[in-house]
């Protein structure tokens, strides 16, 4: 993307809450904007491991869950500000990533996906039966803030800007990564593990780096979710659909691209909100029918995601224009 493109995108994202403030459904639209950014953070975090390194984890809910649970846990048991739990949640996620990464990275392709599902389900069932972690009922945050440090806002706008800041940080880290040794190595691993190893890439070590980076930011996404909603239970924090949401968001926009996850989130979140509004409570089922359909269609026709489609069409247009000029 050009420098001007970046400026336009940044300005649009910064201005969004103001731009919709005058409309009828201002609060609704601002809330949706915050949810789009949150989904983009989760998907971009997954993208580091799943998109760039090509390791399709279906267990990222465990990092999201750790990030969501720990802040509410420190509040529920010790009345500490949930904010204090955010770095603890990241630390817990990195710990889980270290433990889980070792055995699962010996597995490639489908095996890795299966193993990550199993571990995440294991965690979900255990948390659901652990009273200290709220068992099946879950945990709650402060209902009304005791001060700014509890980060409970009535409006979605402060959350929007917090999420935007985290997303900007994550995208900056990812962009930096793309240009660094880590990025090239991950790309090589994603293209073919055996080939990468034969070229001297320390595959296991770099996959672990990608997992740690990915897990840390996924944990942040979970924390932000918990801070905003003030509530988490095993299904909303650790359910398999949490992982699925990250994957489909990244894959729709373009897995392994910098802005694909944001594009995917900008399409899927409004779609989900729309189906929920139109079809009421029963709509949640329909949402996942649509999700499933979208995933199948991407896999079948456009595995590179919408960004690749866009690039291909742009290239074709350019080529056509070139031919015309040549003829003239």
């Amino acid at each position: 993307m050009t420098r001007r493109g970046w400026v336009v995108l940044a300005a649009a994202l910064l201005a969004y809450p103001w731009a919709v403030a005058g409309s009828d459904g201002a609060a609704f639209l601002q809330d949706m904007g915050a949810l789009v950014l949150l989904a983009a953070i989760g998907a971009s975090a997954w993208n580091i491991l799943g998109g760039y390194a090509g390791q399709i984890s279906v267990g990222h809910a465990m990092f999201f869950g750790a990030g969501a649970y720990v802040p509410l846990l420190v509040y529920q048991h010790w009345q500490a500000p949930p904010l204090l739990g955010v770095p603890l949640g990241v630390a817990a996620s990195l710990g889980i990533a270290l433990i889980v990464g070792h055995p699962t990275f010996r597995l490639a392709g489908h095996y890795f996906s299966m193993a990550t599902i199993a571990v995440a389900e294991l965690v979900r069932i255990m948390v659901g039966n652990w009273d200290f972690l709220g068992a099946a009922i879950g945990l709650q945050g402060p209902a009304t803030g005791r001060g700014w440090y509890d980060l409970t806002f009535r409006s979605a706008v402060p959350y929007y800007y917090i999420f935007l800041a985290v997303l900007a940080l994550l995208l900056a880290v990812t962009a930096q990564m793309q240009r660094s040794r880590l990025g090239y190595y991950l790309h090589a691993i994603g293209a073919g593990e055996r080939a990468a190893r034969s070229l001297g890439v320390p595959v296991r070590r770099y996959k672990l780096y990608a997992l740690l980076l990915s897990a840390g930011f996924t944990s942040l996404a979970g924390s932000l979710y918990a801070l905003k909603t003030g509530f988490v239970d095993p299904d909303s924090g650790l359910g398999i659909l949490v992982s699925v949401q990250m994957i489909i968001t990244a894959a729709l926009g373009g897995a392994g691209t910098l802005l694909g996850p944001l594009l995917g989130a900008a399409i899927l979140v409004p779609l989900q909100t729309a189906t929920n509004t139109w079809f009421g409570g029963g709509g949640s089922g329909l949402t996942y029918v649509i999700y499933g359909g979208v995933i199948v269609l991407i896999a079948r026709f456009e595995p590179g995601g919408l960004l690749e489609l866009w690039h291909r069409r742009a290239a074709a247009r350019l080529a056509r224009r070139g031919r015309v000029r040549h003829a003239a």
Partner: protein
Amino acid sequence: MILLQVIVDGLLLGAVYALFSSGLTLIWGMMNFINFAHGEFVMLGMYVALLAVTWIGGGPVVFGLAAALGLFLLGVVIYFALIRAVMRGPMLAQILSTFGLALLLRYAAFWVFSPNFVTLPRSVLSGTLRLDGILLSVPRLAAGLAAAALTLGMHLLLTRTALGSRLLAVAEDRDAATLMGIRPDRMQAFAWGLAAASAGIAGALMAISFPFSPAVGETFALTAFVVVTLGGFGSVPGAMLAGLLVGLIQGLSAYWLGPVYKDVVVYGLFVALLWLRPQGLLGAA
């Protein structure tokens, strides 16, 4: 005596696990492809059985065949519409395709059948046998024995018939099989049909004795992964043995630790196994 009861029940359920897992392992063995929607095939088998009982009536043979036929067709259609194209694509597309399919089928079933648990009418097959102090529920006994027979049948089909040889030839070397006049596309479509049908019958067999809802597929998919990993990818006899073992472990851990932990123990075992012996119990090192 209770322990014996637990063991027998576990083995009978394990035989059904072996049946649907043998379908998953067949696909894996032929195409290095894990079908994440396999559990949903089992779930659909249950609902096809329910529809067959309500519309056609008749006994387990009727709805078992209906489930097998319905799922066979679904498997073939899915192969031609989706899998054939995705197989040539990147890994992400392969995993996403059946994952999306699982979501689609699960929530479409929510939509059509409602998320509530349902059961087949009791009149289909019921009763208990008393044998040396253990109570054998007739539906479970019938399901376990039928599943064991069908898994054995699948093994014989693969190893003793010309059709099975053609299937295995495609699994062994697609290009060489083509040179021998075998059409790999047809064989792979047949394998998908067979795998889905095995899941469908297994679902129908379980539907007799267990209540079910559209959400049950996820657990069955994970169970099948465990069985296939334990038995060694691609091995039907391995799946048979591992299915019985998983049923037994589930039964015993539910008995000793409580019903909640039966899946925890099995998934934990799965992770440990992937760590220590990714080639499976019967697989070569």
